């Protein structure tokens, strides 16, 4: 859709708004010496951030000081140290206090706020402090707003140059120019498969719709256990996702977008709803956006709990109100998607990248990364590391750096055993491949996949057969059931794995697993089935001794584990 009335485009709208917001902020903050930002994502709230906010309010009231501004923001990514807040003092480096409780807040008020002394015994996160390493090796691009904005305030987003990328795209007045920039940037889908995003956009741009309708769908059905990048983006910076969707709509000539969010993420849905309403009020979503003649509407579609709906054709079925069953491709959704119209489906993180690519250019984006993988990637780093949280790293950084530098090494001085990437479609990477760089192809060579960004670090106490059994149990439950190899094959594999972990494994079980796995991979229809055996095959490849030990000793996981502990003593 070429924007019809460029001369009416309200180009200065955002600039004026931003100036107003900044002026308003200066006016409000002119007497303030401190700003305390309480970080409130799902993890923060579960750890008691609500309560901390109340205590902060109370303390500020007690001091009866007009010099303190209290604000809230989304998550700052350091989940294991929640609840946290940041103290910003005029002209000084922000100080992040973590693992807060009532006493600590009191102490911070008594010393930092009243006397201006940083409470170093609470080990706050400052430049060069021990915990600052968690942030030091990160490259926050998609997450550049973390901790800075209140996700419930569109004004905060606009203050940080929000919707400028969309305005720039509007001003280009040529949708294909937008697509050219996306192609040039080299960005690949962040949902896991890594398909070049620009190519996808180009297919949709060229696709002909009989009725004139095209759809943009944001896939927020983040089902991989151990992944929460998309939840965080939707909760902490929802407008960046909406802006990306708007740009995509403009580029491919669509007027309707959906955000498919899993039902397991209530806070994300609430935050996104609020964001859409605010954007509508400002005329950034709806009819004749900013006077450009462009119409675009965005609607939330709530999932109902089915892992397979993350697969794009299943997701389409789900929005149409049916069981989420994948169908063969081609036709690809770009040609025949939702209600058989051309449909662009991208992941939440992909959309979040778009505004900045448009704003800063393709070269800025691909200045970091490897030959085939450009930009940054967000990972949900969890499991047996000291620093658990959401990390955004430049592509090309090694897994070792993520685990040991950012993650702070293995908790409790235990030995590293493996890193699980890509959830149920991925695999486990052993120590000898820890120097593998984060790169779609290099990760694939190890037998795992980049995936959507779940990264679970496992220590020596974990039985790899049990991990394989865990994923097979998950897949078996989530298989939609239309292909026999996936429906029956995964059940047979699960039965064998259950037997082995119960100490009833037999000679030949490993070979049977390999044979079944190969068959399921080759004969399943969709991505779920094609990748389902990966966790089993990769653990057999790298940790065959775990399987053999079970089968030889005829011991269950628990017993085998206990025996090892006794041995150590």
């Amino acid at each position, binding site marked *: 859709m070429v924007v019809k009335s460029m001369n009416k485009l309200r180009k200065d709208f955002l600039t004026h708004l931003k100036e107003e917001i900044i002026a308003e902020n200066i006016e409000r903050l002119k007497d303030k010496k401190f700003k305390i930002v309480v970080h409130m994502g799902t993890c923060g709230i*579960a750890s008691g951030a609500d309560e901390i906010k109340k205590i902060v309010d109370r303390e500020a009231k007690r001091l009866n000081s007009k010099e303190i501004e209290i604000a809230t923001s989304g998550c700052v990514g350091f989940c294991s140290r929640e609840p946290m807040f940041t103290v910003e003092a005029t002209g000084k480096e922000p100080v992040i206090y973590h693992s807060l409780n009532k006493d600590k807040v009191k102490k911070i008020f008594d010393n930092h706020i009243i006397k201006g002394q940083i409470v170093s015994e609470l080990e706050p996160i400052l430049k060069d402090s021990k915990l600052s390493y968690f942030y030091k090796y990160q490259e926050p691009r998609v997450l550049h707003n973390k901790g800075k904005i209140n996700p419930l305030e569109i004004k905060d987003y606009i203050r940080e140059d929000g919707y400028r990328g969309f305005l720039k795209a509007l001003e280009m007045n040529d949708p294909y120019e937008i697509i050219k920039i996306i192609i040039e940037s080299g960005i690949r889908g962040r949902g896991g498969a890594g398909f070049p995003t620009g190519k996808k956009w180009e297919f949709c741009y060229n696709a002909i719709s009989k009725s004139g309708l095209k759809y943009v769908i944001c896939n927020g059905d983040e089902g991989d256990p*151990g992944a*929460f990048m998309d*939840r965080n983006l939707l909760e902490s910076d929802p407008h960046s996702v909406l802006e990306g969707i708007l740009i995509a709509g403009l580029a491919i000539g669509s007027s309707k977008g959906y955000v498919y969010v899993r039902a397991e993420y209530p806070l994300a849905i609430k935050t996104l709803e609020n964001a859409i309403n605010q954007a509508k009020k400002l005329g950034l979503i709806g009819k004749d956006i900013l006077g450009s003649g462009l119409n675009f509407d965005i609607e939330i579609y709530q999932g*109902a709990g089915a892992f397979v709906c993350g697969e794009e054709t299943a997701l389409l079925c789900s929005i149409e109100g049916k069981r989420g069953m994948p169908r063969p491709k081609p036709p690809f959704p770009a040609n025949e998607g939702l209600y058989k119209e051309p449909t662009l489906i991208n992941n939440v993180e992909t959309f979040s990248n778009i505004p900045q690519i448009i704003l800063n250019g393709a070269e800025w984006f691909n200045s970091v990364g490897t030959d085939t993988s450009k930009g940054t990637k967000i990972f949900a780093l969890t499991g047996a590391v000291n620093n658990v949280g959401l990390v955004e790293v430049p592509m090309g950084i090694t897994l070792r750096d993520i685990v040991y530098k950012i993650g702070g090494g293995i908790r409790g001085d235990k030995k590293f055993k493996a890193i699980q990437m890509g959830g149920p479609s991925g695999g486990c990477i052993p120590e000898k491949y820890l120097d593998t760089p984060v790169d779609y192809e290099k990760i694939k060579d190890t037998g795992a996949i980049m995936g959507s960004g779940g990264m679970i670090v496992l220590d020596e106490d974990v039985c790899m057969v049990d991990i394989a059994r865990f994923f097979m149990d998950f897949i078996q439950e989530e298989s939609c059931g239309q292909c026999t190899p996936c429906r029956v094959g995964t059940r047979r594999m699960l039965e064998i794995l259950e037997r082995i972990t119960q100490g009833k494994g037999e000679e030949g079980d490993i070979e049977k697993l390999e044979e079944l796995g190969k068959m399921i991979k080759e004969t399943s229809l969709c991505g779920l089935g094609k990748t389902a055996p990966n966790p089993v095959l990769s653990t057999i490849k790298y940790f065959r001794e775990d399987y053999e030990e079970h089968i030889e000793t005829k011991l269950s996981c628990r017993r085998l584990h206990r025996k090892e502990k006794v041995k150590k003593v």
Partner: protein
Amino acid sequence: MRVIDLPKYDLKKEEIQKVDKAINKSKNKRGALIPVLQEIQRKIGFLPIEAQKKVASGLNIPEKDVYGVVTFYSFFTMIPRGKINIRVCLGTACYVKGGKRIIDRIGRELGINPGETTPDRMYSLQANRCLGACGIAPIIVINDKVCQKVDPAKVMDIIYSYK
């Protein structure tokens, strides 16, 4: 769970109204089935066969398709949930930190399997897919409250504190 195993449930008058309201609200929308079912479940807590039949005729969809969707998606339930609904996350991060032990413990203490409700309708237990709060694993969700870093040995204290 087969249809014939389900306890018979007659919709109460106000429940019928709620079901009708949900249907009428989205009647003419494309792809309305799932949002309508979600709303009904939100309002009356579960999706009895009677309600499914009403949805089928209201939206002009075959009953088998409504039933098919209800049984496909894990968020839909045909069994009433308890007053205190306990969801245990069994995502990878929670699993390696003891999620399985937590759900086993609760099930044993309450005498129900995951997916079931106690006869007095006080407690219901569900195994949940990853809730994306891996940083504070293992977690359980009681009604809508997320409880973090749960110790399997102390989990019953948390649950009983909700009485």
